[in-house]
């Protein structure tokens, strides 16, 4: 199969949003293409960086929300 793969295709491949035909083509050619590997590594690094910096809301904020959720159960609301 002779086709041009763009970086947008790689982007969609990484997030599994690309069409199956393109997905399998990239998967088969990937071991032989260092540029693709580098691009996909950048995407993985971005994912990891954002996940690693993930934080949770404070307990106080969560209690305020839960209090509000109970309060709003007033049938006259």
């Amino acid at each position, binding site marked *: 199969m002779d086709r041009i793969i763009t970086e947008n295709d790689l*982007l969609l491949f990484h*997030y599994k949003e690309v069409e199956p035909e393109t997905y399998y083509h990239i998967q088969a050619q990937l071991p032989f293409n260092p540029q693709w590997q580098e691009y996909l590594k950048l995407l993985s690094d971005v994912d990891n960086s954002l996940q*690693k910096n993930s934080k949770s809301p404070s307990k106080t904020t969560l209690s305020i929300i839960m209090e509000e959720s109970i309060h709003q159960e007033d049938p006259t609301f």
Partner: protein
Amino acid sequence: MANTCITDGVLIKRYVEGNTAAFETLVNRHKDRIYGSVMNIVNDSYLAEDIFQETFIKIIHNIKRGKYNHEDKFLPWALRIARNMAIDSLRRKKRMPTVVTSDGSDLFETLYIADKSQEDIRIENEEHNELHGWIRMLPEEQKEVLVLRSYAQLSFKEIAAITDTNINTCIGRMHYALTNLRKFSEKNSVKVK
């Protein structure tokens, strides 16, 4: 464990029927992804807490008023509300005058830093690696798509709906974001780890 089998739509239905535990499950299921997305967009933990709280209060009001009709698409809906609030806050923040100290730094930023312990700062520095620092420097539209796709794990279709654009625009913004990250990396002569 069993709660993971219950869909968001069912939890909302149960909450409407008076089961507040169902709402708590919903909050716990999505809190980190929503808070984390907001935090990654606004880069301010205090602001992120406010936006997160206001988002869920709006969600409660909308559900109770019968305005929720997205079945199991709760997360994209909630993120749309959170995203719009984040964008509004950033716009307001830009309009606010900054109080600068004699060395030219933002007074409130200085106070915030002074309030942290050395340990807090050390941990924060470790956590915020170079790549994350560069992500923070991206133009807002690019960062937004990057965060919603990479962190919140929404599809480009869902991001397009949230940002009132189309799929190609979202893919384009993500592509430019990655191009910029590569440029930052090259400029700093450091390979992205």
